[in-house]
């Protein structure tokens, strides 16, 4: 059985866990605990180690999707989780500009870890106060060669599209 891995990363509350939930065939194995910090109580729980989802491709191939924890104190997990990955998805909450700097930090950290392709998913694009994709590209300092796609993490179709585009990027690199 061949296993391959894609990592989903991004700042706190970007939608990583929901992204994996939307596509995984198994209930996402997650490691959530109650948030203790008042400043981070935009949600009730947060991932403290990783999320883990699975898609069985066929009898011989399984895709695992690992979600990194978003809180800074767990960033030591990133390098561990990124080992052997095919590529990664960086999720950004399009409605919270205060997270853009953290998104850039995560993106540049992962780029330094591994030469694998990546895609940036601009999540929460269904919300009124979401930044436009073009504006996000400038705010995140992404050059034109980086794929930046709209995403709604609880919409399976947009999640599929993002993963497929990442896989196309991997194919292009192999040419």
């Amino acid at each position, binding site marked *: 059985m061949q296993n391959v891995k894609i990592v989903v990363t991004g700042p706190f509350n970007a939608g990583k866990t929901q992204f994996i939930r939307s596509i995984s065939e198994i209930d996402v194995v997650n490691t959530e605990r109650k948030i203790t910090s008042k400043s981070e109580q935009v949600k009730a729980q947060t991932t403290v180690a990783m999320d883990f989802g699975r898609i069985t491709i066929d009898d011989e*191939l399984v895709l695992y999707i690992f979600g990194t924890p978003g809180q800074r104190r767990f960033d030591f997990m990133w390098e561990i989780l990124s080992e052997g*990955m095919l590529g990664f998805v960086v999720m950004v909450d399009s409605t919270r500009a205060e997270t853009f*700097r953290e998104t850039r930090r995560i993106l*540049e950290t992962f780029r330094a870890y591994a030469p*694998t392709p990546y895609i940036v998913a601009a999540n929460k694009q269904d919300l009124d106060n979401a930044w436009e994709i073009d504006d996000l590209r400038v705010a995140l300092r992404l050059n034109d060669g980086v794929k930046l796609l709209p995403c709604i993490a609880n919409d399976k179709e947009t999640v599929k599209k993002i993963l497929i585009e990442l*896989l196309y990027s991997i194919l292009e*690199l192999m040419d």
Partner: protein
Amino acid sequence: MALKGNLSDFPIIQILNLINLAKKSGGLLIQISGKGSIIHFQNGKLVCAQYADEDNNLVAILYRKKKISRKQSELIRKKAGKITDKQLGLMLVNSGYLSQVLILQCLKDYYLSVVRRYLTETKGTFEFISTLEPPPDRIPVRMGLENVIIEGTRQLHESEVLKDEIPSLEMAAKFKKQTGVDIQKLQLSVQEWKVVKFITPKNSFKQIAHANNMNDLEIRRVILTLLQAGVIEMVRSADAPKMDVSTAIPNTSKQEQRSIINRLINRLKTA
């Protein structure tokens, strides 16, 4: 109880603050990448400092500050033999060549520069030894630490922000195409121009910093300036390992790897 630990857990600023408030006397040993420095304190005041194996006698300090020429420094070393800094200082003052105020100022500047080199360091170890006295042949000065602590706190904050923007100095940069920016017309400082000269994917930021004798904070500051101006974009260094799908899909041929990726795509399309 030993006052020792890692700079990652207890930055220099906090150590200086502790020494200042507790009015400690002794020597602070700092070890980073195999290089050790010693900073001496008396009742919470900075009195002397030695950076790694850098020559910190009075002749060397005056020469670095350009108060004496190379020829003069060589002559002093040759003629004066093994006299102490105090004796040399007296000689220079009595001969009317340099004033006491100037000599002390040069020493203070040097000792402070040693401390400044560590203000934003987060790697390495420290140990404070209360019995470690300054070398008897050096001229001690007495400087309050308040200003250096304030300066260090500002730098530490700036350093954290810069590390967020540029987490790794192993990355490189290239000039952005079609920015409409005429680099020749940019108003950059001398230091910034020196960095611009080295911008190419072949040179990591670490290498550029080394070539220009810049520390981590300085190189990050310049790179961020250029990034924000849209002049450059960050890329992986040309020397960095290239993408190799075999690390993700081991023991497979290139054809098998392509087949796997295509199977993934087809499966996801029907999911």
